[in-house]
């Protein structure tokens, strides 16, 4: 009998083109997503060396980071952003790459668009010049963020040179409690392993709480894998995965679909497969989680308080925590629910899918955003926006005082006009609370969509479980 293998090993083995004597692997890449920010220098590199794109149909391009989320009929005010968007368009035309321009209903954040179109499938290798490519691992694929030099490498050769990563399994036992979402789960996991905990690993998520998650919820968990330091996170495909894929525009059509499902069913890790590291998490103990610092690991349950830097002395992080609290304008001992909120942002590749819009609307319905707060909802793609509008969610948001925007990365990284002012506290569903991430001097608190909406309404952080 052959050795039991993990989901990761099966996919890796089936993509091996070559192994060098030193163990470095050349792996084949099935799918490549690209956007305007990390690709211009790669195309320029191809042009300079006279190289072609090996398999243009395996790449899909969509602008997302820079695009404005309102007044799309007007010219973009930022000339440099416009140049980057024009450059993408010029490059995809020249190299023959499929492309969804800004006025296409399918335009959106790359990591929302891939799954939505059926471009992302189980058992694949998927890359993108963006660290949150990990999102696509929710389908049981190896999905990794790469740098621009690697983007050029993939364009030219449809392969990547990689060292074999180590494997970690995170088993989440039990069920999540009411009011606790996939976002809380992944924040709790990062709190437990730390932002460097996954460095050098690919993480497989398993256990009852993971199986119970919807595809959207699984994408949220895999998306933030990179915040735990791992390049890829994956979840074995199951009936939910197959159902989600069925009928999507780029998914296998009838006949081929059944054949594909048969193959996908062989992917889950074998009984007895060995991981380099095992982590176990108890889902029943997880509360809604909120970050209070400037790293995703600086996080805690909403019922808690801002910690004392001295508590981190043993880990050698006292100075870092001190700096975080100064930047965040917080003092040790302050209850998390006493932190005031000036802005709220629901969106990003972490929480910009239809399920997130529904969760946000369920809390917003019949309520009003606090006077001190300015809040916006940014759907992850044009299709998410359309679906939400068909369900009447946009009306709920607008009535409650939220702005309802066009699809894009928006205030997740504030490359466009959507950004925080110095000192503002933002309840955000995005994935990074680094200094300056959402605007210079801005203070980000990461949380779930329901929690972000509840905070916008109360004007301070609240425990969603206390809402009547």
């Amino acid at each position, binding site marked *: 009998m052959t050795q039991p293998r993990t989901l990761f090993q099966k996919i890796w083995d089936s993509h091996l083109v070559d192994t060098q004597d030193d163990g470095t692997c050349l792996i084949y890449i*099935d799918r490549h997503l690209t956007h305007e920010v990390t690709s211009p220098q790669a195309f320029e590199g191809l042009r300079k060396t006279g190289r072609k794109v090996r398999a243009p149909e395996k790449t899909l391009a969509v602008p997302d980071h*820079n695009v404005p989320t309102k007044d799309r009929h007007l010219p973009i005010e930022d000339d440099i952003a416009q140049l980057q968007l024009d450059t993408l368009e010029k490059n995809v035309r020249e190299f023959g790459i499929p492309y969804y321009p800004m006025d296409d209903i399918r335009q959106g954040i790359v990591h929302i668009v891939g799954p939505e179109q059926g471009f992302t499938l189980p058992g694949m290798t998927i890359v993108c010049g963006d*660290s949150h490519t990990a999102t696509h691992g929710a389908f049981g694929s190896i999905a990794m963020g790469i*740098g621009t*030099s690697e983007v*050029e490498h993939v364009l*030219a050769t449809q392969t990547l040179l990689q060292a074999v990563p180590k494997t970690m399994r995170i088993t989440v036992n039990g069920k999540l409690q009411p009011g606790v979402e996939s976002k809380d789960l992944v924040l709790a996991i990062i709190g437990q392993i730390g932002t460097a905990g996954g460095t050098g690993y690919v993480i497989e998520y398993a256990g009852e709480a993971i199986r119970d998650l919807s595809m959207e919820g699984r994408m949220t968990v895999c998306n933030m894998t990179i915040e735990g330091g791992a*390049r890829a996170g994956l979840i074995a495909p199951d009936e939910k995965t197959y159902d989600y894929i069925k009928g999507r525009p780029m998914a296998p059509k009838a006949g081929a679909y059944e054949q594909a499902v048969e193959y996908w069913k062989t992917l889950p890790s074998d009984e007895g497969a060995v991981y380099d590291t095992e982590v176990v998490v108890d889902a029943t103990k997880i509360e809604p989680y909120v970050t209070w610092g400037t790293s995703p690991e600086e996080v805690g349950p909403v019922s808690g308080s801002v910690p004392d830097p001295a508590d981190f002395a043993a880990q050698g992080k006292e100075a870092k925590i001190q700096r975080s609290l100064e930047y965040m304008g917080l003092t040790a001992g302050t209850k998390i629910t006493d932190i005031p909120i000036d802005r709220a942002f629901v969106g990003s590749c972490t929480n910009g899918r239809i399920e997130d819009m529904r969760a946000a609307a369920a809390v917003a319905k019949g309520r009003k955003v606090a006077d001190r707060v300015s809040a916006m909802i940014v759907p992850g793609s044009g299709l998410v926006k359309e679906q939400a509008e068909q369900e009447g969610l946009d009306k709920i948001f607008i009535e409650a005082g939220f702005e309802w925007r066009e699809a894009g990365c928006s205030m997740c*990284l504030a490359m466009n006009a959507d950004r925080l002012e110095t000192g503002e506290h933002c309840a955000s569903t995005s994935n990074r609370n680094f*200094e300056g991430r959402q605007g210079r001097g801005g203070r980000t608190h990461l949380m779930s969509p329901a929690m972000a909406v509840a905070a916008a309404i109360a004007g301070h952080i609240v425990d969603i479980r206390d809402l009547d």
Partner: protein
Amino acid sequence: MEKFTQLRGVAAPLDMVNVDTDLIIPKQHLKTIERTGLGKYLLDELRYNEDGSEKEDFVLNQPAYRDAKILVAGDNFGCGSSREHAPWAIDDFGIRCVISTSFADIFFNNCFKNGILPIVVSPEDLEKLMDDAGRGSNAVLTVDLEAQEITGPDGGTISFDVDQFRKHCLINGLDDIGLTMEKENKITDFEAKRAQSQPWL
């Protein structure tokens, strides 16, 4: 790619953990379509005040460190995004070697693709190097990739590990894409096999 064999120069201490890619190069500078010219924005928010003037006490603004070629930094350097603008900014500033106890994976990879050597050392060695780097214009280190050794201002040496393939590429200034293209036949064979076994792709 520029070759990396031996590097001798001033090492600047950046005694912070989790220096993320947003700190190394904030997003307002990602709108470029070029690889060059980002050095002036390296560590932007630590280096400049909001009005654009320099923060005098920041290490890279001090006369002794303005021409630093090496950076010594705390744990988990380069965490966050995949932006290659981070190593481009480091390289454009003139820094070709970063030393820390640990690096985020994508950043680590990106360094090698740009002729920058990231070196992982033990916490004890980092402490010593941080100390060495604190000596202003006397903070001169020599990094010898061939020998896998760092020599401090007092002549003491620290040896380090490096992946042999990456070392080979750095020393010879080899371009990955060119190397992979030599395996064109293998890629074509692979594609043909997959078209058979997984025709839905």
